[in-house]
């Protein structure tokens, strides 16, 4: 005798208990601390902060621990937490020209005021597994130090702007729309597109950017400048009548300089793509700049060649990995009711089709 499946609640509780056990792993191995994750998996923490749209390294580290290292799951935990937070106000725009840079490179000039600062980069490491790391307890020797450069480092594009060689960027609307508080609609202006890209999935934005490099809407980018460092966040306090510093954030900023031969509406000049991401996230910042530039085809009077990275609906609707993974994974849920209706339809259509064939064969 068939008995309908029952006990969903107990199954869920048991699954959660098992998950908790698996998350901890072998209890004979020391447990990870939040501080360890924050300090030693800093680039994972940066990614979770960027795509979670919440700058809090400790919470990001906690999310990574809870998610067993699944970064999209960690991003999801941060987003779900973020959305419950009250909003006290908006900060002043941050000033990246005043960034205290750990890294600052330009591909367009051999040297420039402030110099090229390589910083803590994987770029010239040989990708050889370092087996010495497997033996724990070996702290690296301190890196050599130099005095920080005096004053702020000017943006590379400022030099091009002085000669009118690069398109000036008009000021946008005073208060940009907030992607997390208003439904997305189209056409999406650049501030909204940049918001979507900076919290978009790194893999998706990377692949979109890569597709433009391979010819799907080519944008001829040079990395005008890539800088990583610390920026102060300030907020205007009406009662005080001036701005106070709330703290500092680490950011990665990329400005690309793109060849532009001119169009019906614009003279030949260089144009920009822009990327700005929480934490040290240079792959993401560069990708974002390429995709940003690609999405600007309309305002620059370029042709739409039908490339995916030119289609703002396509890019913006599919960049969010929390949305994407939720919808993708929802097909695990029971669908037996719609499947049943489909099953009956296919059986009926099949019977009719086979009947037709049989009749034709008989004729």
């Amino acid at each position: 005798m068939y008995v309908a499946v029952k006990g969903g609640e107990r199954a869920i509780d048991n699954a959660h208990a098992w998950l908790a056990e698996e998350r901890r792993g072998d209890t004979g191995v020391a447990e990870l601390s939040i501080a360890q994750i924050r300090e030693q998996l800093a680039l994972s923490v940066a990614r979770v902060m960027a795509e979670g749209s919440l700058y809090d390294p400790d919470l990001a580290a906690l999310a990574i621990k809870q998610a067993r290292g699944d970064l999209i799951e960690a991003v999801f935990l941060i987003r779900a937490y973020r959305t419950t937070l009250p909003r006290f106000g908006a900060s002043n725009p941050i000033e990246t020209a005043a960034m205290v840079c750990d890294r600052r490179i330009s591909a367009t000039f051999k040297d420039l005021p402030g110099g090229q600062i390589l910083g803590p980069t994987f770029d010239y490491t040989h990708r050889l597994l370092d087996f010495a790391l497997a033996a724990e307890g070996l702290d690296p020797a301190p890196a050599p130090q130099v005095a920080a450069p005096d004053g702020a480092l000017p943006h590379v594009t400022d030099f091009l702007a002085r000669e009118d060689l690069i398109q000036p960027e008009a000021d946008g609307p005073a208060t940009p729309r907030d992607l997390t508080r208003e439904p997305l609609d189209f056409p999406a202006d650049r501030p909204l597109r940049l918001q979507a890209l900076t919290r978009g999935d790194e893999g998706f934005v990377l692949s979109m950017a890569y597709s433009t490099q391979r010819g799907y809407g080519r944008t001829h980018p040079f990395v005008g400048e890539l800088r990583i460092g610390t920026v102060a966040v300030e907020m205007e306090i009406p009662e005080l009548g001036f701005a106070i510093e709330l703290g500092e954030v680490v950011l990665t900023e990329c400005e690309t300089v793109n060849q532009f031969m001119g169009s019906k509406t614009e003279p030949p000049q260089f144009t920009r793509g822009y990327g700005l991401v929480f934490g040290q996230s240079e792959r993401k910042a560069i990708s974002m700049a390429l995709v940003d530039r690609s999405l600007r085809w309309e305002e620059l009077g370029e042709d739409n060649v039908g490339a995916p990275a030119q289609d703002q609906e396509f890019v913006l609707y599919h960049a969010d990995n929390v949305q994407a993974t939720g919808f993708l994974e929802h097909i695990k849920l029971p669908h037996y009711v719609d499947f049943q209706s489909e099953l009956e339809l296919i059986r009926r259509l099949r019977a009719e089709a086979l009947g037709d064939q049989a009749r034709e064969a008989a004729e």
Partner: protein
Amino acid sequence: MNAYNFAYLDEQTKRMIRRAILKGVAVPGYQVPFASREMPMPYGWGTGGVQVTAACLTPEDTLKVIDQGADDTTNAVSIRKFFEKTAGVAVTEKTGEATIIQTRHRIPEQTLTEDQILVYQVPIPEPLRFLEPSEVETRKMHALEDYGLMHVKLYEDIARHGEIATAYAYPVKVEGRYVMDPSPIPKFDNPKLESAALQLFGAGREQRIYAVPPYTKVVSLDFDDYPFDPSKPAHPCALCGAEDSYLDEVITDDAGSRMFVCSDTDYCAGRRGDGA
């Protein structure tokens, strides 16, 4: 969970959702954009329905949650638990006792009353989406009441298959104006869309809310010579014998033996009189 507000959402978010629901009610079948929030459950798992339910719940409500018609499917259990925890509301499996019913993919068999609200979880709210992927274009079509694309699709089905080859999420026209996706309910359920109950639809990931007020005219799209047919195969339920309910097909052994049982577990249990 005590750190969270009644029914989880903060009051500002609820106001935003409530305004969207009211506009949805005022323009039946039109998809109102709303700033859907990230919920503590994945997109695609009922976040739209959950937000609508959270905005409508009062502490005195009795909530029923079904998935595929059943109260005991895991996601239904999970959502019901969420509201027990965050809103402290009473829950029930009995359709007749519920004041709000959140559903995925079914309309209960028992006729709903004026005192009930049915909240649907919707994956893709745009009925034209699989014919035209661009939101900008489909919005234009709704604005111009240009549903030619849909009629062409239905007509091509008939030309190719001799019938409209849509078995679920069968499109409807609401109050003679908007073509609407009723969510992936089997077309068997379409006639029940004309109801005494208020029906609200929430699509979280797609950021849309829409509504069918009580007694609103809801017509399944068809042609005069190929009228809409909501029928299902004529099996009775193997458990309760019902011939008027939608049935799940269950494979019972390795030889592929099968039986058909009610998808609406409360309806089936009620007919069997065991009150389970």
